[in-house]
């Protein structure tokens, strides 16, 4: 496969022609913030946190779905990008009920970590305080819609890796929410295989293993990556 040479934040980088800007940056040790990207499943370009500036292109481009090109000049960090990213995070905090103090994922949460990284000391928007439910009907896992950011990682792992298709998005706009099967309780789902991959993929405290309490929900992402890599590289075959 042909290689492409370009710059990211002034650094000369080479990557395969099909690589995304996000892949290339990660490879080069440059960390672009993202919440919807998950190693092993297809990208959707939805969270808009990985937007980067590319010289000569008026619009900001999502690093996760933009392919590298020869001679591209990419800027992953600028005052403008930082400002937009912080606003995006603030919008998320105001959208649902993210109460870090009582969250299972406190200290292990990608949303919380990004808020720190982007310098969010408070949210400038009025909180909407919507009413969302908690689904605790599953024997192994729980889902708290209050903490969901609709990144759809769970939907994608459930379909793309596990092949069950239990999870999907229902409704639209700010009424969108993650469902199991026909919007029934997760515990009554007829398709859930209880594999737990959705829980492994969740960036916040929305999906959690039952029994964990505040700050105890740590996730092992390496398992997901292992499954995907093993499948792609046929490592299952001894």
């Amino acid at each position, binding site marked *: 496969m042909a290689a492409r040479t370009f710059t990211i934040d002034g650094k000369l980088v080479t990557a395969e022609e099909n690589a995304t800007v996000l892949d290339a940056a990660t490879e080069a040790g440059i960390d672009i913030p993202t919440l919807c990207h998950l190693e092993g499943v297809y990208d959707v370009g939805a969270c*808009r946190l990985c*937007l980067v500036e590319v010289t000569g292109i008026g619009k900001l481009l999502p690093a996760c*779905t933009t392919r590298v090109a020869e001679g591209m000049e990419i800027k992953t960090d600028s005052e403008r990008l930082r400002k937009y990213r912080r606003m995006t995070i603030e919008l998320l905090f*105001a959208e649902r009920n993210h109460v870090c103090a009582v969250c299972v994922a406190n200290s292990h949460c990608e949303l919380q970590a990004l808020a720190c990284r982007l310098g969010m000391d408070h949210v*400038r928007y009025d909180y909407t305080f919507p009413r969302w439910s908690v689904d605790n009907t599953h024997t192994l896992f729980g889902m708290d819609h209050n903490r969901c950011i609709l990144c759809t990682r769970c939907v994608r792992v459930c379909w793309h890796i596990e092949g069950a298709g239990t999870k999907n998005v229902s409704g*639209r*706009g700010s009424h969108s929410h993650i469902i199991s099967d026909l919007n029934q309780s997760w515990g009554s789902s007829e398709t859930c295989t209880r594999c737990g991959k959705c829980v492994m993929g969740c960036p916040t405290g929305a999906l959690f293993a039952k029994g964990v309490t505040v700050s105890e929900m740590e996730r092992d992402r390496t398992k997901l990556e292992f499954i995907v890599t093993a499948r792609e590289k046929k490592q299952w075959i001894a």
Partner: protein
Amino acid sequence: MVIDDLMEIAAKEKAARKPWVVRCCMAAGCMSSNSRGVKEALDRAVKEAGMESEVEVRGVGCMKLCCQGPLVQIDNEKPGATVEVTSVDHSPLYEKVTPEDAASLIGTLKGGKTSVESADPNQPFFTGQMSIVLANSGIVDPERIESYISLDGYDGLHHVLREMTPKEVLDTMIKSGLRGRGGAGYPTGLKWATVAKTPSAQKYVICNADEGDPGAFMDRSVLESDPHSVLEGMAIGAYAVGANQGFIYVRAEYPLAISRLHTAIKQAKQLGLLGSGIFESPFNFNIDLRIGAGAFVCGEETALMASVEGKRGTPRPRPPFPAESGLYNSPTLINNVETFANVAPIIRKGAEWFASIGTEKSKGTKVFALAGKITNTGLIEVPMGTPLRRIVEEMGGGAPDGGTIKAVQTGGPSGGCIPAHALDTPVDYESLSKLGSIMGSGGMIVMDEGTRMVDVARFFMEFCMDESCGKCIPCRAGTVQMHHMLTKILAGKATIRDLEQLEELCDMVRNTSLCGLGQTAPNPVMSTLRFFRQEYLDLLQEDTLGPGATNPPQKTVPAAN
């Protein structure tokens, strides 16, 4: 089907023409004022007068002056004449016709008088128009392909298939200067050329008939009035780019347009104008209908394609553009109704003719749906570059009841409000965009002094909020916050800080949203802020608890030592 067959159909249709043609509008606007009842009454009246052999009562499409519907027009050609009328200019256009009026209207054919009022065909509303897209509208019977054929219909397709290479068609389109009529104004020829040069065994053509802008009904009228012109345009496009399958994605809210399209496609297939080996060429092309289901975002091309694939209509990032990877990951040509309706006339009359109309960068005509606080509501087609003032004041007749026009809204929820003092702006893509609005698909809503602009901004924001698909954060959550801020402003509970925050959020949502819906959602706010800022400021409350509101403390800075 060969050209002789086509000519024979046209000749037969012309020969069968009765001396009198009573045209009755059967488009959705007049139908909602009982034009079906009028047509039935006209049919009865003809029968009762014993004039069946002399009079044809023809259900036609939109006759433009929708506010005065149901409309009826009689072509009083001399008895025995066999020439099809192609101009509506000189016969009286009867307004607000009721079934009871039918007998007296038919009576006029025998020299009787009628008390039914008729519109002056020489008023600016009609004389200011130039019809390309709507040329057949109100004349052709939209439910009979023969009627379309008798007006040179499918001639363009024949010409293209028999006389032109795809490359020549592309060149013609590029030379014509036609730009997408869906709103953004991308050059149509370039788009076609990109699809054409992308190698693929399978390509698609999609007609975007998901006319979702509130206040826009041009595409609906075209589909209801002259569906075959769209089919012909699509077929020509398919030939040029090398596609063999087309889809028309039409809103479920337009049942009449759907039924006429069904009929039109069926008739075209029966005559072999769609299907395999069209005009005995190797070209195959089929069209299927896809019915939308109430999602504005599906007007966005990637969302529309997801919907055609039976999925949730959420957009995806571009690139890749549909021209390279669209429906089912194949190169896809996607244009809107009006764009396709321009194609056959361009082929028939030539690129030079088309390019001679309009302005330097915006060629041809544009159809607008004139509505709101204006005397003449209805459909108009004007050359690009026509000043807004001529459209709303001369043709539209200004605000009704002596009111004053305050602003003209174009481009729907993606557009902006053009203030009255800028009415001399010519209508073209660049001029409107300079004013912070867009051409959009053609909705033109006139607002008078009674309209509060902050209210208008909130109305559109509510629309965008409800129609946001929810996929990307800036649009999903940003529209909610912008709507909240506008509500706060309208309630008199906001301060200048809120207004600053609103402007900052507008900038962010515009620059970070995934698709056009989010990227343009702030436009109505930004344009009203630009031209009617004082209306916002008047609603703000004094910020007594904001920065600098504190009484001076004893110490000036919190400094140690």
